[in-house]
């Protein structure tokens, strides 16, 4: 097992290097690094030239790439062209925000998805199963940005108006209310509820269908018949012998989904003005802030690679039929 992990880690180094080349090329091809200064009407041609020289933009591309890579690896991610702040703390803050939002949504979706899928599989073709299936189809077909806008409208405007409240029950943008200092759990949750609902709709649909299919397969297995034949109670058969095995494929999926959180919440974060990785990317992209985009893409890639590894390892650990050494 240890050797396997080591080998996978060593193997991911060339993958990361190739990714970094792609990231660098893609960023350079899609952003104009001197856009920020060129848009300034008072900047003279000479100043633009000096700006480019300062950033090393006129060096050969290979040299620029190596320079950037060296800086990135040693932790010097540079400063944002727009806000002039250091990039590393900015990305770490955004990442933490995204992980809070994505983590919460994952917990909610998993709980709901597994419960719904389990119940559906045990009561196949029941009324509940029928409703859950229809719900899953609607959830999967829903344009989630539209759903987010509707929720904002209902909770932010209509509900407050109908109930005659002065402040809404849940907030439709940001992380904390202005004027609150320190950490207020209730206030924080009030800001998180709507984004979490939006993120969960599709994921619950996917997880519940996945769980249902996986559980139906397990329910037909020989070892479940064996468990029953041994005289175990139905509850033990279903939960301990059945569900635990049905969860294995979902675990892999969850690991992959968590890895995607770093770069995957773009829609929800933009609509709810949530300062996570997604909104950071859209903002940086809008301003052509290429140092931010470079580091952002690398962090996202690292996340995806690490969680891919975790998914494979989890699969191996949970399914004893796969042996390592």
């Amino acid at each position, binding site marked *: 097992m240890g050797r396997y992990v080591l080998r996978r880690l060593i193997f991911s180094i060339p993958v990361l290097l190739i990714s970094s080349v792609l990231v660098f090329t893609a960023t350079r091809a899609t952003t104009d690094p001197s856009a920020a200064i060129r848009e300034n009407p008072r900047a003279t041609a000479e100043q633009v030239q000096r700006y480019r020289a300062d950033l090393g933009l006129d060096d050969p591309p290979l040299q620029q790439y190596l320079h950037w890579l060296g800086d990135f690896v040693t932790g010097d991610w540079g400063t944002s062209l727009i806000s002039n702040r250091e990039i590393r703390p900015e990305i770490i803050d955004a990442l933490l925000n995204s992980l809070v939002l994505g983590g919460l949504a994952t917990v909610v979706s998993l709980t709901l998805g597994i419960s719904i899928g389990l119940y559906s599989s045990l009561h196949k073709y029941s009324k509940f199963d029928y409703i859950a299936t229809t719900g899953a189809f609607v959830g999967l077909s829903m*344009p989630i940005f539209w759903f987010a806008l509707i929720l904002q409208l209902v909770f932010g405007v209509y509900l407050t108006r109908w109930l005659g409240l002065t402040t809404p029950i849940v907030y439709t943008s940001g992380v904390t209310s202005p004027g609150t200092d320190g950490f207020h759990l209730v206030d924080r949750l009030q800001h998180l509820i709507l984004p979490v609902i939006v993120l969960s709709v599709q994921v619950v649909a996917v997880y519940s*269908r996945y769980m249902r299919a996986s559980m139906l*397969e397990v329910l037909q297995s020989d070892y479940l018949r064996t468990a029953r034949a041994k005289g175990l109670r139905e509850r033990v058969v279903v939960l301990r012998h059945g569900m635990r095995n049905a969860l294995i494929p979902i675990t892999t999926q969850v690991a992959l989904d968590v890895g995607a959180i770093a770069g995957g919440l773009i829609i929800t974060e933009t609509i709810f003005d949530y300062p996570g990785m997604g909104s950071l990317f859209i903002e940086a992209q809008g301003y052509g802030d290429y140092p931010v985009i470079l580091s952002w893409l690398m962090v996202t890639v690292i996340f995806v690679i690490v969680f891919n590894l975790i998914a494979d390892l989890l699969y191996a650990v949970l399914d004893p039929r796969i042996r390592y050494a």
Partner: protein
Amino acid sequence: MPDATEEFQRRQALKEEAKAEGSLHDIPLQREVAAAADVPGAQLPPGVDRELADAAGAGIVIASQRELAWRRFKKHKAAMVSGVVLIIIIIGSLAAPLLTSYTFSETDVTSPLQGPSMKHYFGTDTLGRDAFTRVLYGGRISLLVGFAVAIIATVIGATIGAIAGYYGGWLDNLLMRVTDLFLSVPFLVVLILGSLLLGPGVLDTVIILSLFFWMYDARIVRGIYLSMKEKEFVEAARASGASNRRIIFREMLPNAMGPIIVASTLAVAAAILTESVLSFLGYGIQPPTPTWGNLLDDARNLAVSAPWLILFPGIAILITVLCVNYIGDGLRDAFDPQGQGKSL
């Protein structure tokens, strides 16, 4: 020391193979069906319903797999209803000029931001343009993108999957690693960068989306080819001197059509959704060409004053995608009766 990823992939491949084999064999021979139906109360092969067997026994002996699939599809009520609704939506957007007396860019400054009425079914926007007309015309682009992407992605994916599955070995390994790579990139980010590179036109959007929609077809088709290539009919074709190309596309491809059709139907739904997201974020197709996505982007800041501008394009997307997904589910049941109830 066995490699865990290889083991994992082998298991996945086996699963896919098993599925693929299932879908090839579970459509029972018509003879069997007829024979079983002759004996009252006889045990029918799994996946065959009584009515079908009776029909077969009553003289309709020759039915192609396609006919059988169609009969099964007709039983899926949601899919049939969805088919009708989708046809109405498609005809509606194609026949837009006949259904409305406005054009999608015609402004009327005297009646901006009016709510839905008999004059303007879906209300008007800031420039007094008729929202119903814009949703109809928007549907043209959204549907066009959805179908075009699904077709192109299916062609790319099926070709790659067929080559990987048929030849196997290092070529298979290489193609599948590339597929994995495409599957693991942060999807939306890459689409945004791609649209910045290519541009915001309809054709550009179709190209970008197609480049990131072929992986599912590739995997499915590979699984089928992997299990099919040792079959007698392939052997026979090879013995009679058919070229690899002929075997891949003429002999084997027809046998893989069921799962391919299902996968590409679901791709239509996903492509329509993705196009709307991209246009909504401002990186897809740009106004004045209306699409359901950029209509929503336009209306975003008007949500409070003109909620109808948000409501209708969103419902259009939801209903269309829902219909396509249900049709995909119906097709899956039709082509793969064993897998029923394991949809999505």
